[in-house]
């Protein structure tokens, strides 16, 4: 456990697998850069692995002032115990004030283990981070410049702002896709600090027998236009309408959890609380009622077009263009209109 350290840096865990940086630490960089600048401290990345030094420059290009680099043969493959131990030791040595992780499966496997060992707080799946003050009700004490860890809770029905003011570091995992990717600046220079990890074979508690990587069938996060279908589309056959509309717009096809559960489309296409978070220029919601869990994944879209035959559908509350009607009539009309204009 470390105490409040106002001089402490802002850290981002630089998740990498097989020498490839994940998107999430890069997405986190722009927000973390802003947090560090607001607090007047340095931004550092914690990079662990074996032969991963060349990734350090990339992290600096994306905004890090420093990279703490731990290279060790036993860190070649991620596993919770060895990584948690190495990061815990690093945190104890440098006492950062904030440590951020992507809310990937790896981040969600690793960060709680570190938090438990450090007896520190951890907020899961944040969608925003801010700096602010908090006054404790009990003694009226003002705690300045805390990390506001903002996340949906209760299935997305409320937004909670979580703080920790006494037991640091302030740690959070941040949802994938909620923060825009920064542009790299190849001219940026930074410091690489090589650290040693005290690890032995005993620290590798898992034996990884097999691994099968399956590339995602669709990259929703990168899509500028998304056409998404919900349970209202009715059947897998009828979901062809979604594909057709997406194709003529050069858009990515997506779906609600309900549509995925009904087998209309593969889970890689799912947008929402338990799927991907997207922020495209245009989101066309077809036959989607707009449960809060779905809205949590798409409400940041620049423009939203909603097509639904139920005037009361919650999706209409956030839509810029509201079309009340039968999707089987409306979607073909849209396809026709797009083909005429292009």
């Amino acid at each position, binding site marked *: 456990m470390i105490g409040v350290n106002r001089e402490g840096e802002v850290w981002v865990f630089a998740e990498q697998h097989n020498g490839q940086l994940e998107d999430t630490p890069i997405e986190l960089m722009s927000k973390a850069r802003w947090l560090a600048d607001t607090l007047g401290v340095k931004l550092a990345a914690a990079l662990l692995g074996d032969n991963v030094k060349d990734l350090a420059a990339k992290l600096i290009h994306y905004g890090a002032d420093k990279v703490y680099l731990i290279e060790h043969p036993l860190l070649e493959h991620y596993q919770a115990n060895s990584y948690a131990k190495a990061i815990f030791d690093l945190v104890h040595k440098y006492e950062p004030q904030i440590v951020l992780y992507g809310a990937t499966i790896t981040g969600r*496997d690793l960060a709680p283990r570190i938090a438990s060992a450090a007896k520190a707080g951890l907020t899961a799946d944040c969608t925003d981070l801010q700096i602010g003050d908090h006054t404790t009700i009990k003694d009226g004490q003002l705690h300045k410049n805390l990390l506001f860890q903002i996340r949906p809770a209760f299935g997305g029905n409320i937004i909670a702002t979580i703080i920790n003011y006494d037991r640091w570091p302030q740690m959070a995992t941040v949802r994938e896709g909620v923060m825009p990717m920064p542009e790299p600046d190849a001219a940026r220079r930074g410091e690489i600090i090589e650290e040693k990890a005290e690890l032995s074979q005993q620290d590798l508690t898992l034996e990884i027998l097999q691994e099968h990587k399956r590339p995602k069938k669709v990259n929703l996060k990168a899509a500028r236009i998304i056409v998404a279908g919900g349970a209202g589309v009715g059947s897998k056959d009828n979901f062809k309408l979604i594909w057709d509309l997406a194709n003529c717009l050069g858009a990515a096809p997506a779906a609600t959890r309900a549509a995925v559960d009904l087998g209309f489309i593969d889970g890689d296409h799912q947008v929402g609380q338990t799927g991907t978070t997207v922020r495209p220029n245009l989101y066309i919601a077809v036959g989607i009622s707009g449960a809060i869990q779905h809205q949590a994944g798409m409400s940041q879209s620049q423009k939203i077009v909603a097509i639904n035959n139920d005037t009361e559908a919650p999706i209409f509350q*956030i839509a810029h263009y509201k079309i009340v009607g039968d999707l089987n009539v409306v979607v073909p009309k849209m396809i026709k209109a797009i083909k005429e204009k292009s």
Partner: protein
Amino acid sequence: MAYNCVVLIKQVPDTKRITGAAMNDDGTVNRAALPAIFNPEDLNALELALQIKDKFGGSITVITMGPPAASAVLRDSLFRGADDAILITDIRCAASDTLATSYILSCAVKKVDYDIVVCGRQAIDGDTAQVGPQLAEKLGIPQITYVEELIELNGKTITARRNIGAGWQQVKTALPALLTVTSDANEPRVAAAKKMMKYKKAHTPIEVEQKTQAENSAADEADIKALVAHKCSELEEKGLLIKQWDLDFVGADLNWCGRGGSPTKVHRIQSVVLAAKESKDVEPNDKAISDMIHELIEDKTIA
């Protein structure tokens, strides 16, 4: 060999059925207005333990921390085949965050003989997925999170397939170990009628006390106390007493429990009110739809 499993479960408000009626004016959630259910992925955790028991033998102990009413999920677990049930209930647990919760649970689990600890991946009220890994750390045992399939149990080792996002990995570890289980792992079995008949009478001491008080409102305190003790020992003889532990019993250091033991605090809660800044109604006819597409092309939304 037989394996003793501890399954950690949680009673949660059914957040999928949340409606306006369940929201207070200040944006907080009125938990009382929501049905309380067995956390879905904890049912998958229990099913995984039941499959281990079916194949290898051993026992299943289910543990939950919560208010007295949380005994409902313990009874449900007994209906489905668990052998023993423990309710950790103590007002001093209130406002525990995941760190404090995992500490309290670790104190309780240490009192039970176990080879495998099984948890659901996450609970639908908080969706944090933190308590499992934190508990594994506190118990000093390895964790396999996001388990989709139990591959093999062989002597003192376990092999499981875990989801890694874009793909899967098969990992092996030495027991004792902790698993967190996803909804893809199995199809939870339903309650067995015979067990339901038997265990519907299973109660915690606090439930016995509440019932006795309600039935004997005129009796004095000492008489009620004696009556409760008698009824509890009767239930215990029949194997129908759900164990009820408090923080003293599990030997928890109160500094690490409840609000004081929780580093994370709530600064603010807001209800979600999402609304588009400006919106247009578009009639479902050719002209209106064509105009909309034209607008979206004009403002470069569609390239």
